[in-house]
């Protein structure tokens, strides 16, 4: 392959080519799930993050493997970005014993503690205090770990958000509350549900630095998170980041998208898609060629198709598995 002369963006803290690959993995992982669902091969529900790949990758990339993420119901991007094995994620989605959660969690609870993924949550806002607890644990044990807690815009109206931010602030915990403001909590526009301009303003109430950023600009996201990670690791306490983004798909499988216009959606998809924006930037900086982009997309599609084909052959849980793991014998 021809080596392109790299004119790297000097202002970015992330390997953007590597990030682009991850973003494509996330998008095609979810497109593959959608296809499986459409042909009736996927049981249960899921919440797609297509359109939010920059917040997923830009949020997790500045973290070390031993740092934690706490995720939400819209979690696939976060999990892949933190390094959760994609094959195991497909297996979880397809109800296989080889799944990240042995088939017991499904989409909404994918966890992989070995790579710092403390798990995804089906209860909106529940992750805020759990993230504070993990950060407290790191602080008390002196591990220098940092916790990044993903959450949606709607979650900031939960009491747990306010309780956790206050706790994180008074104890100066090494945690970053990272709000993916994708404009809607299910069908409810965030504009109708809060009476403030920016969700990041809420940090002020708790003595936490709050910042609102363009969540579809990978470099902006990763730079902002990098700064917050550094601060948290050095004992500077929590940060509240609001990253503005958009979910291209509906809330979940039942969404008929009656609450937003096609035009609005098209605007975001055509002019503010995080993958297209990153590709454009890399092309402008001569860091990638159009051909390489096409190859990347194609090889990722092939990679995902191969994984699914292989996962389909895996064993399902047995009847006996119903009763395992209700109670723990050993500590993990």
């Amino acid at each position, binding site marked *: 392959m021809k080596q392109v002369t790299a004119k790297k963006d000097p202002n970015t803290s992330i390997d953007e080519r590597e990030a682009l690959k991850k973003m494509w993995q996330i998008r095609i992982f979810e497109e593959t799930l959608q296809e499986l669902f459409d042909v009736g091969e996927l049981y249960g529900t899921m919440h797609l993050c297509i359109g939010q790949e920059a917040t997923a990758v830009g949020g997790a990339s500045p973290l070390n493997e031993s740092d*934690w993420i*706490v995720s939400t119901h819209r979690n696939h991007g976060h999990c892949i970005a933190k390094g959760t094995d994609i094959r195991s994620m497909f297996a979880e989605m397809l109800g296989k014993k080889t*799944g*990240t*959660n*042995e*088939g*017991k*969690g499904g989409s909404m*609870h994918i*966890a*992989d*503690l070995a790579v710092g993924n*403390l*798990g995804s*949550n*089906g*209860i909106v806002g*529940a992750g*805020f*205090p*759990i*993230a*504070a*607890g*993990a*950060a*407290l*644990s*790191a602080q*008390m*044990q002196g591990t220098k770990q940092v*916790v990044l807690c993903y959450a949606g815009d709607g979650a900031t109206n939960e*009491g*747990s958000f306010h*309780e*956790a931010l*206050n*706790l994180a602030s*008074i104890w100066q915990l090494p945690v970053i509350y990272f709000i993916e403001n994708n404009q809607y909590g299910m069908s409810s526009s965030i504009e109708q549900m809060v009476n403030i301009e920016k969700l990041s303003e809420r940090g002020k109430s708790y003595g936490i630095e709050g910042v609102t950023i363009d969540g579809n600009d990978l470099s902006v996201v990763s730079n902002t998170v990098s700064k917050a990670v550094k601060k948290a690791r050095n004992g500077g306490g929590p940060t509240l980041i609001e990253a503005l983004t958009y979910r291209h798909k509906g809330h979940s499988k039942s969404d008929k998208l009656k609450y937003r216009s096609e035009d609005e959606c098209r605007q975001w998809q055509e002019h503010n898609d995080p993958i297209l924006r990153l590709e454009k930037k890399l092309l402008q900086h001569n860091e990638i060629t159009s051909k390489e982009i096409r190859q990347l997309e194609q090889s990722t599609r092939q990679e995902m198709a191969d994984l699914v084909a292989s996962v389909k052959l895996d064993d399902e849980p047995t009847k006996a598995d119903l009763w*395992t*793991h*209700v*109670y*723990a*014998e*050993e*500590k*993990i």
Partner: protein
Amino acid sequence: MRTVTYLQAINEALDEALGLDEHVFLLGEDIGVYGGGFGATSGLQEKYGKQRVRDTPISESAIAGAAVGAAMTGMRPIMELQFSDFITVAMDQLVNQAAKIHYMYGGKATVPLVMRTAAGSGTGAAAQHSQSLENWMAHIPGLKVIQPTTPYDAKGLLHAAIKDNNPVMFYEHKLLYQTEGVVPVEPYTIPIGVADVKRLGTDVTIIATGIMVSKSLAAAEIVKVKGISVEVIDPRTLVPLDKETLLTSVEKTNRVIIATEAVKNSGFSSELVSIIAESKISMKLKAPIVRLGGEFVPMPAQKALEAQATPQIASLVQAVEQLMKEADI
């Protein structure tokens, strides 16, 4: 052997656990200088510092959630909720998170936390500070539920709860805090899931939980004069439940009374009745099972009304005598 109060026994177990395991820490409202709502953590912040005996804001959801997050990442938090009624505010973290994470994650994470809380009526604290809601937690797979009734049980079961690798709900009864009993000086554990025969008898079995254990023992003394021999069984842990000890006693006496302070409707006493009814022993019962429990009313503040709302020694005595009469017919 020395005698200490139930409150001291709990304080001692916490003290020892903090001393034995650096991963153990306490968090809750006013547990530091104040010593906790009822004094169970008295003196511990002075001894172990503000990091390990951690005063929190009035944020029950954050207390529970922080305990979950810390437990998943290597610590052994012991959280205090001043009154068990406040569990309502922490419910999501205990029921949807703590209870389910081990299972939901396919066994790849554990949540070794203890939730200690003061429960029950008898202090005139009215409807929002007097409930017996332990049955809620007993309904949730993944949680263990303990209701110690003596200082000895309190210390041993609290040590066991702290060592357990699951979320354990530990209900202390306010009226028991000042009761005394023999308690070993050194740390010890009582296995979770083993009932205790608090009094041996031959005529009637009373299965009692919480404060009803001491009331049943008092009632047993009263009816003894009339020649009735009562056996009192204390399950001690609602989950896991030692069914064998309960059924063995009922098989011996063939007459059974179940006494809880909690309201009977959809209560733990219903569960105990079902266990007996579903066993073959039910065919040998000399009389129908008798169930004493709280009246189906919010707890009133006024002293006489409050006493009327839960079974008292006199009602237990009456129930035993009535049961013996019915069985004679």
